[in-house]
């Protein structure tokens, strides 16, 4: 038979593998099941996001009304009464809720204090909450790799696969072509799945349509594509290496179990043990101690305030605070707020440095699991990670500081000595200060994205090397 009349082995292998994939009913059912779960969770998450956004707009309006209800009130009392800031919903959180459920979407803003966000979705749960809800990200990060494992564990190791392989070898296929052919066919199936997910994701996030949104979604899907490819490469290599389909299944399942279940759970715990986070009580005690004793621990507040009083009197050239042209208490509130804000900012910086150290350590676990690279990348692009939350908190803090200082300024400028029940229209004082939180701009996300991307690419490259090595084994066993 003339060699020119034969179909080139690689094309033949790809076509044969593709056809057998399409004819595999169990895989079709599993694939459809995963896609249906994705679609269902996307729909549910989209509906939930719309409901939460409506509630946020309503709560913002009511909060404003409550603030206005105060009317004439003591501005310092109003600073303690405080305001609430609500975090807007990130559109891509529909796909990956990231840390959202554990962060809290509301911050109480009040004088002297910088509160952490409250009202987490996980508050007030029961044992069932320990299992976590189902999200599209869970389907894409955990279930799709499992689907890949089921689809590919028998690519080389199964009895039918071996029969087919012998026929392909008989047609002149090299081990490299055998591997490449299977990788291409299964890779095409992965691409098809990715395309379907992309369409579903686009539909689910349609209201947020913008170039930045599309770019973030595109990058996110690219990340998922690389992650699935990495899984595909590793499981194909395991299949080629395994002596039989049973070993291949156990090897691939073991990899899935470690990479998608165990490491993502154990790595953050180890990171926390290495860089412990202070409890809220200890954190608050640290702040209070610095407020009372000064940054150096040896400057009692009374002494610092006495020095401030002396400096103020000297500045205005008077001997008593009652002779000042401004209200001294208001000035002291203003000064105190500036000091406590700086102290809080310093302590929060330290806290977030600890978090960042934990994140770095967790990212290092991507040496064992590609999910440890994908997860931060996905949450970064969805703006459901810690960085996005802190971006919101910083804007809320700026708003809090402006509001509280405006109230303090009013006391400073308008309250007369001896005026014990001073009241002012607090709503009017703060009317010009608005809270309009904005998400991180897309280009600000990119510097944080390249390391996880590089890690995912490294996984794909490593998987390709494993496949190449495993191909030699195929040659031996054939």
């Amino acid at each position, binding site marked *: 038979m003339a060699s020119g009349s034969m179909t080139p082995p690689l094309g033949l292998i790809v076509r044969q593998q593709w056809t057998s994939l399409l004819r595999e009913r169990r895989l079709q059912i599993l694939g459809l099941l995963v896609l249906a779960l994705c679609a269902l969770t996307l729909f549910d998450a989209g509906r939930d996001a719309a409901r939460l956004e409506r509630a946020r707009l309503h709560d913002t309006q009511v*909060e404003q009304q409550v603030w206005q209800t105060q009317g004439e009130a003591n501005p310092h009392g109003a600073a303690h009464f405080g305001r609430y800031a609500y975090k807007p919903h990130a559109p891509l959180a529909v796909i990956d809720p990231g840390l959202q459920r554990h962060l809290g979407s509301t911050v109480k803003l009040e004088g002297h204090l910088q509160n952490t966000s*409250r009202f987490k979705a996980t508050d007030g749960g029961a044992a069932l909450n320990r299992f976590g809800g189902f999200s599209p990200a869970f389907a894409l990060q955990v279930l799709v790799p499992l689907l890949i494992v089921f689809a590919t564990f028998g690519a080389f190791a199964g009895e039918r696969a071996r029969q087919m392989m012998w026929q392909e070898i008989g047609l002149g296929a090299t081990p490299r072509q055998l591997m490449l052919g299977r990788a291409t066919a299964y890779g095409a199936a992965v691409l098809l799945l990715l395309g379907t997910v992309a369409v579903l994701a686009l539909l689910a996030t349609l209201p947020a349509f913008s170039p930045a949104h599309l770019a973030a979604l595109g990058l996110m899907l690219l990340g998922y594509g690389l992650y699935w490819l990495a899984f595909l490469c590793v499981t194909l290599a395991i299949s080629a290496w395994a002596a039989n389909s049973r070993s291949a299944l156990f090897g691939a399942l073991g990899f899935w179990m470690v990479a998608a279940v165990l490491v993502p*759970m154990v790595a953050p715990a180890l990171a926390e043990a290495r860089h412990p986070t202070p409890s809220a009580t200890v954190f608050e005690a640290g702040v209070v101690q610095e407020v009372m004793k000064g940054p150096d621990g040896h400057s009692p507040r009374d002494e610092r305030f006495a020095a401030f009083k002396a400096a103020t009197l000297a500045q205005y050239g008077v001997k008593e605070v009652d002779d000042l042209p401004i209200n001294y208490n208001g000035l002291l509130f203003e000064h105190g707020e500036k000091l406590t804000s700086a102290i809080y900012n310093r302590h929060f910086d330290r806290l977030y440095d600890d978090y960042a150290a934990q994140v770095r350590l967790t990212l290092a676990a991507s040496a064992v699991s590609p999910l440890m690279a994908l997860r931060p990348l996905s949450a970064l692009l969805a703006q459901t990670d810690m960085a996005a939350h802190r971006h919101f908190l910083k804007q809320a803090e700026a708003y809090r500081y402006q509001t509280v200082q405006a109230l303090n300024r009013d006391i400073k400028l308008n309250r007369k000595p001896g005026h014990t029940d001073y009241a002012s229209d607090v709503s009017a004082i703060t009317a010009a200060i608005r809270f309009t939180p904005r998400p991180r701009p897309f280009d600000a996300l990119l510097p944080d994205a390249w390391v996880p991307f590089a890690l995912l690419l490294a996984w794909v490259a490593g998987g390709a090397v494993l496949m190449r090595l495993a191909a030699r084994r195929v040659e031996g066993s054939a």
Partner: protein
Amino acid sequence: MSTLLITIRTEARRMLRGGWLLPLWFAFFVLCAGAAWNGMAWVEGRQTAVASILEDEADTHAMRRKQLAEEVTADNRQRYGGALYATAFSLRATLAPGALAILTVGQAEGYPMAANISPFAASNTIFDQHTAGMENPSVLAAGRFDLAFVLVWLLPLLVLAGSFDLFATERERGMAPWLLSQPVSPARLLVSKALARALFLILPLVAILVGVLWMTSTAGPGALLSVAGLVLLYGLFWLALALLVNLFATTAAQAALGCLAGWLALAVLLPALALGVADLAAPPSNPNERANALRAEAMRARAEMKLQPTAAVIAPGNVAPNIPDSLRRRAVEVARAEILIQEALQPYRVQDRARQAWLNALRTASPAIALQDGLERLADADAARARHFQVEAHGFLLQVRAIANQYLAQDRLLTVADYDRGLPRFVFRGLPARDELFELLFDAAVIAFGAALLLAFAYLRLRHPIHLTE
């Protein structure tokens, strides 16, 4: 020797000679030890936090006592209101971790662990300072690696890994017809094989767990036995699943796939689905809406107070009272606000109770949820206890308020003797033991029912043993 014993002995020999039993025991021991170590670190952190809260309370009292003893005079009394007025009581209610807290973090991070009790504090704000933790959300999102995680998620995998080929290997190798032709019924053969797994696989795992708990916790034998009982039942449930799968699978790979699919469905998908059902049927109340409603009520109480004539709140028959009348006005405002707060909270409480009822009922959806629930109850980290703490802390606030009001009515100042006698203290009583036992037995019943259901299916399948030789 009966066929049952012979089969058990043969299976035991196979398991030991297979070379996987000892590594499996060891793996479980390592997992338990790691989780217990994690649990101990968490408990230590929680105990430190609670101690620090109580220390803060003690420091405040010591400072105020010192002020009364050494600094307060008739002329400067106004400056020491915090030490002199009962309305300025600064007390704490805390929820300490239980004796078996290393078992699971449970719901402890989703509920406040302490309350700041002060007579004039609005009752809806007493937990504010102790609600938000500083834990890294990434750790919380990943889930705590505690003993409950090992038991609920990993123990089934170990049990299934050791029993997925209970009979499938014999079928795959063509030994099934020969085995079934022996003078032993298929049901007896399979039950014997399963019993061997229970004795040499599950029982040792339970013993390892109890050993680890005995070494790392202060729990008594009763609590340890309860944990052992629940976990044993749970292990048997998964063994029953493996048995059922083996009645259908014709190859070991099929059996492994079936077991894994069962694990995925019962330990991952079904609970997630159940949570989705709870969210749809009984969504949680909107905390932001509640906060706004309560703030509006606070404004209402204040506005009403402005209209209140001063004569209604002044100290009776006392021209120059020890306690300023402004505090009496405030006490009236606080009492009114309390009524408004309770009224405003009512619809949210109804909604939250409905949700809790759903979440509680949905533990019947999977033995995995029931075990998690049982472990949380045994660890004193369950939602019911946390909610009960809130009720008791609120009761303590009302009690402290009543005491402060007595001082106001008598125009009485606090004295050094009052501080020496000791200020009111919060003592957590907890839920009645009978209620806790009922809930625990309910969890055990859910797991036992699940196992019984699987065995019933297996029995039905075994009525036609011809399947086993196909």
